[in-house]
Structures are given as structure tokens and as C-alpha cells.
């Protein structure tokens, strides 16, 4: 299991477009992917969950990836952050 903190560097913040990229990655692989912000943890497989987090640029969020392909998933996700 990967459990780490990441900072969103994208200048457009974590809005609908990057969120849609994340949900695509999360659904493409077997691993479970969770995003933690403040006290909420949501599955990255759901676009509505991600949009409801309203993550902003510069924020640090928790990223949890668990599964056999977690390393590949992490690599893919870091590309869009």
C-alpha cells in the first residue's frame, strides 16, 4: 500500500478536467485509489466524490493507493498533479 502526501502543482487547481483524468486512471487499474483532504477520504474512482472535494492548487492532499499495480498507478497520477 502506498500512503503519501502530495501537493497539487497544477495551476488550474484540481478542477473538473484533472479530476476527470484522475478518475480515468483510477478506473483503468485494479488498485483502489483514495484521496484524503481534511477529514474526508473519498474513492478516486468516483468523479462526484472528487469534484465534491474541490481541491485547490497548492494544497497538500493524502493519496492512498492499494493493489498489485499501485506503483504504475502512482506514476500515472503524479503526472497529472
Amino acid at each position: 500500500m502506498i500512503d503519501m502526501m502530495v501537493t497539487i502543482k497544477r495551476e488550474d487547481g484540481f478542477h473538473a478536467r484533472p479530476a476527470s483524468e484522475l478518475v480515468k486512471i483510477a478506473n483503468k487499474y485494479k488498485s483502489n485509489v483514495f484521496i484524503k483532504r481534511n477529514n474526508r477520504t473519498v474513492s478516486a474512482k468516483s468523479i462526484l466524490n472528487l469534484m465534491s472535494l474541490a481541491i485547490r492548487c497548492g494544497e497538500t492532499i493524502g493519496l492512498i493507493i492499494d493493489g498489485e499495480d499501485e506503483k504504475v498507478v502512482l506514476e500515472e497520477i503524479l503526472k497529472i498533479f
Partner: protein
Amino acid sequence: MIAVIIVSHSEKVAEGVKDIAEQMNNSKIMIRAAGGTENGRIGTNTLKIYETFEEVKNADNILVFVDLGSSIMATEMAMDMLDDEIREKITIVDAPIVEGALGAVIQATVTDNVKNIIETAIESKSLSKLQE
């Protein structure tokens, strides 16, 4: 293949929602706007909606997102003008026009399950806009 149609009283709103949704598209979803009257005024146009249905009739499923009142009526009238086999593919989705259309398009890029796509769009009603 899924088609998403945006029906609004305003041509600009329909085009605008389409533009945002296209940003999420993986080019596999047909997104069309059918807003405003035939001369670009505020209102709805059954014929325009009907022609949009005809344009996407080869899709397996057609999801329609509407704004208010007569958008729904005009959509239903346009549906009545279609052949049964096209009409059966159409669902008017009970969801907010922006969030619902976006949710549906994004979900359609991760699954082919149309029931799941519609559910995602409907659930966007409960999306809270302001929170810490």
C-alpha cells in the same frame, strides 16, 4: 456509443455546457447542443431538438440534459416525432444541466454501463458546492 444532448432555452448555455463537457471527452462520446429558438432568441425549438436526435440516432444510448420547463416539453415533442427504435434509446436525465452533463460524460469515459452513467449524473444533484 453514447450521445449527450444539451437542451437549453439559451443557445449560448447549450453551446457552453457542450464546450465544458467536450474538455472531458475522450472523443468517443457525441455531445450536441440544441438550445434557443431557430433565430437564436431565448426559447426552445422542437425541430432543432428533433434534428439533433436524428444526427445522433446511431448512438446506442442518447442522454438528454435539459434546463427548465418547456425544454422538457419540447424534448418530449421531438421524441414523439421520432421512430420507435430511436426514441427507445433516449433518456431525459433528471439532473442539473451542467454538473449532470459533465458527470455523465466523465463517467462515460470510464464505463459503458449506461445505467451507471445516468446514476452518476442524477447523483450530481447532491453535490455540495461550498465546503471546507
